[in-house]
Every structure is written in structure tokens, then in C-alpha cells.
């Protein structure tokens, strides 16, 4: 028997049982270019995060009195602990960047238009869940940065007033808020993410990839979804290598045990625009996040046009560019100013 026919027999045996041939549907050539693979690369990043996260969770103590110490133990005593934590942190940054690029691509190509409005909403929910994961992960550090992030949880509860019960420490006064956010980070949010992700992928499969904005001749080579996954896996490897290199060149330490009642840190880059809004408007600035997500959800309603090609995207692109400019401007403003106390 030749080697190739041996592989063929193995494939047939596995496929008969797992119906893997269903993944070999055809995918147009443009859908295998980097802009259209970003979603799958985000998923690859998520795999890295879950893997390193599970490992870290074996050594982390989610109690305010012991959390900081447990992270120091991970860095100094657990074999490869510093590297695994470094990969987790850097992969988080990289995954969020890839996710934002994916959102920009979907928005720019108008892939939220009919019949994909519901999938866009699912995607917005996924974005919110990913940001919540990044936020809760920041709290879990339990240094000065972490505790000041936690205090924003309480502030958010106060802002929502009657509807803010869940986010307030008073909701479950016997359990430290850190412990509840740990539970969210390792269980509640990943579960929510998984449910939304399955829905998201199911809908993408049902609708098919959105039409290309520029018509091109059919490519000579036929691509299947397997190539799409393979490309994502390749970029995922690159992301893992980058996260590993960054964790070695720029190791992330751990701050002193946190003290409540002062505000001397600024949030990570992702939340700087929100911090800028707080600098300008006080705690009411947090509503900016709500307004941003409401606008995102409204995008398929605001832009119902069916004009084909890039020329039909002009107005939407202008609006998107304006929003990005506003966010970048707020972020730069927050980055350049001194830390400001928002709660006193």
C-alpha cells in the first residue's frame, strides 16, 4: 500500500465517524486573505488565552488577602510560571487588537447589512464579552492597577442606580468582589463567550461569507474552509511566538499589594478613552461606553443601504473614521495627563 493511500484510508475512516467532510465546503478566494481571516485568528488567540489561563488558574488564589502573593509565587516559584503569565497577558493584548481589526473590517465592508444584522448584534455582544474578560483579568492582578479597576465596578453599579445591583459589592456582601469577578473571568464570561461564538459561527456558515466589494475573476485554485482554518492556525502560531517573545523581552511584573482609597494609576490602553471621558465628565463619563455600544448595535439600522462596491460605503466609512478619531483622541488625551482622582 502506498503512503498516500494509507492516509486516504485513515481519512475515510475518521470522516465516516466524525463527518469532517462537512468542513470542506468551498470558500471564495478573497475570504482567505488576511482581512477575512481575522475572526478565526481571534479564535486562535482565544485558544492560547484559555490554555494559559487554565494553567494560571491552578496557582491563583482569588481572595483579596492572598491574590497578590499568589501571583508573586507564580512569577518566582512556579516553573515557567513567569513565561506562562507573560504569554497570557501579551496574548490578551494581541487578541484584542486582532479582534478590533476584525470589527473594523466587518464594519468597513458593510458585512452587517441584510441578512447579517442579527449576526452583527451577536458580534457586538462578543466584543462586549471580550472587553469584560480583559477588564476582569486586569482586576485579578490585584495590585494598585487591579484595585482601582475594581473600584470602577462599584462606580458602574452606582451609575446604573436601580439596575446596578449585580455589579455592587452589596449584592453579595459576604463574598469579596474580587472573588465574584474571578468567577466571571474563568466561568461566566467564557461560557457566555462560547454560546455567542457558536451562534456567530453558525450564522456565518448559514449566510456564507459576505460578498466582496470588488469583483474579481474566479481564482484558478479552489479553496475550502480547511484552508481558512489552516491560515488561522498559522497566524495563531505567529501570535503565540510573538506573545512568547514579548513576555521575555518585556516581562510584566507585579505591583505592591493594593490599597483602596487612592487613585494613582491609569488603566491599560484599551480603556484609556473611557478614562479620558472620566477626566472630562467625571463618573458620568462611563455612560460613554454604553453610548458607544448602543451606536454599534444601531449601525445596521443606520446604514440600510444596498449600494454595491466601495463607493456605497463612503458615508459609513466617514462615520466610522470619525468614531475612531474620537476614541484615539480621547485615548491620547488620557495618556498624556496625570492620573486624576475620579471618586473623591
Amino acid at each position, binding site marked *: 500500500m502506498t503512503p498516500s493511500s494509507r492516509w486516504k484510508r485513515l481519512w475515510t475512516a475518521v470522516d465516516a465517524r466524525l463527518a469532517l467532510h462537512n468542513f470542506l465546503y468551498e470558500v471564495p478566494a478573497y475570504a482567505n486573505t488576511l482581512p477575512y481571516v481575522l475572526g478565526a485568528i481571534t479564535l486562535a488567540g482565544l485558544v492560547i488565552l484559555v490554555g494559559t489561563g487554565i494553567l494560571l488558574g491552578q496557582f491563583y488564589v482569588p481572595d483579596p488577602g492572598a491574590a*497578590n*502573593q499568589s501571583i*508573586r509565587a507564580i*512569577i*518566582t516559584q512556579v516553573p515557567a510560571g*513567569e*513565561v506562562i503569565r507573560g504569554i497570557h497577558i501579551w496574548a490578551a493584548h494581541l487578541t484584542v487588537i486582532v479582534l478590533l481589526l476584525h470589527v473594523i473590517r466587518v464594519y468597513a465592508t458593510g458585512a452587517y447589512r441584510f441578512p447579517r444584522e442579527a449576526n452583527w448584534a451577536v458580534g457586538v455582544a462578543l466584543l462586549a464579552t471580550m472587553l469584560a474578560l480583559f477588564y476582569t483579568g486586569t482586576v485579578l492582578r490585584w*495590585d*494598585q492597577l487591579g484595585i482601582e479597576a475594581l*473600584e470602577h465596578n*462599584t*462606580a458602574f*453599579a*452606582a451609575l*446604573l*442606580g*436601580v*439596575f*446596578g*445591583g449585580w455589579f*455592587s459589592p*452589596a449584592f453579595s456582601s459576604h463574598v469579596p468582589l474580587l472573588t465574584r469577578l474571578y468567577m466571571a473571568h474563568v466561568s461566566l464570561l467564557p461560557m457566555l463567550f462560547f454560546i455567542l461564538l457558536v451562534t456567530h459561527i453558525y450564522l456565518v456558515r448559514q449566510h456564507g461569507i459576505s460578498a466582496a466589494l470588488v469583483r474579481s475573476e474566479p481564482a484558478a485554485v479552489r479553496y475550502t474552509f480547511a484552508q481558512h482554518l*489552516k*491560515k488561522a*492556525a*498559522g*497566524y*495563531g*502560531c*505567529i*501570535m*503565540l*511566538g*510573538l506573545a*512568547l*517573545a514579548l513576555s*521575555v*523581552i*518585556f*516581562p510584566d*511584573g*507585579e*505591583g*505592591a*499589594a*493594593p*490599597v*483602596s*482609597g*487612592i487613585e*494613582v*494609576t491609569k488603566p491599560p490602553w484599551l480603556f484609556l478613552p473611557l478614562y479620558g471621558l472620566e477626566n472630562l465628565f467625571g*463618573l458620568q463619563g462611563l455612560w460613554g461606553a454604553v453610548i458607544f455600544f448602543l451606536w454599534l448595535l444601531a449601525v445596521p439600522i443606520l446604514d440600510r443601504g444596498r449600494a454595491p462596491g466601495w463607493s456605497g460605503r463612503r458615508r459609513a466609512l466617514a462615520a466610522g473614521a470619525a468614531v475612531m478619531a474620537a476614541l484615539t483622541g480621547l485615548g491620547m488625551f488620557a495618556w498624556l495627563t*496625570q*492620573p486624576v*482622582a475620579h*471618586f*473623591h
Partner: protein
Amino acid sequence: MIRTRIRSAAAGGAAAAILLFGLSALPATPAAQLPATPRDALTLVRQALAALEVSPPDVAVATERVIKALFAQDTRGVDMPRVRDAAQALGAEDATAAAAYLMQALHPAEAEPSGVDRTLLVPVRPRFTATPAVYELLAAAALLIGAGSLIARK
């Protein structure tokens, strides 16, 4: 036709009113308990130290807290002469010396049960060190990036 429209509008309005009433009946969250500035020297010194441990150190907040600590009535667990030394150092904007004095001002956990674990008061700031293990990791990273580029190319 209009009557059914009015009826359904009225039903919708009634439902909205009941919903809003029901929601407002939920126990209201107490307004965010803004942490009041503490009055005991121990917490104030810990806050001043935390302000100095971030980069860049926040000398203004630390000075404010140290001054409050100097006026505090409750000075249990704090070595006040060290706090005064820290205040002088902060006046000259010497954050490093001030942080050292403040740490000395906090009685160590080894000496008394109510003391603080001094190791937790210092940040862990690992730096890139050129050891063989580090180079191995960088080589592994390069390998991953290379392999990934190959897989993604075809």
C-alpha cells in the same frame, strides 16, 4: 381597525408602566460608597507608599497623605519619626528616600501580629536578563513565528 390599534397601544403602555413600576420597586443600590479619607496613620501611610510605588511615583498624592498621617490621632502600628523623615524627603521630591522611610515606618509582620508583610509592599519588576534560558525561549518564539508563517502562506 383604529380601535384595535388604540387597544394594543394602551396594552403596550400599561405593560411599560407595570415594568417600570416593578423595576423601581427593586431594592435600590446604595450610592457608591466613596471611600472616605481614612483618619488612622497606618492606612494613610500605606496609601502614601502605594502612591510612591507606581511609575512614575505620584509625589503629590503621597505628600497629601503623609501630611494627613502627621496630623492623625490614631498612630498605632506606625513609627512616627520615620513618617516625619518621609515628609521631609517628599518636600524635596525624593520619592525613593520617602518610600524607604515609609516602609521603615510600618512595623514588620515578624515583629508583631498586626504588622504588614513588607515583601508585599515592594513591586516585583523583572527585567530582561540575557541568560541561556531566555535565549532558548526567544529561539522557540522565532521558530513558532517561522512555522506559523509557513503554515499561513500556502
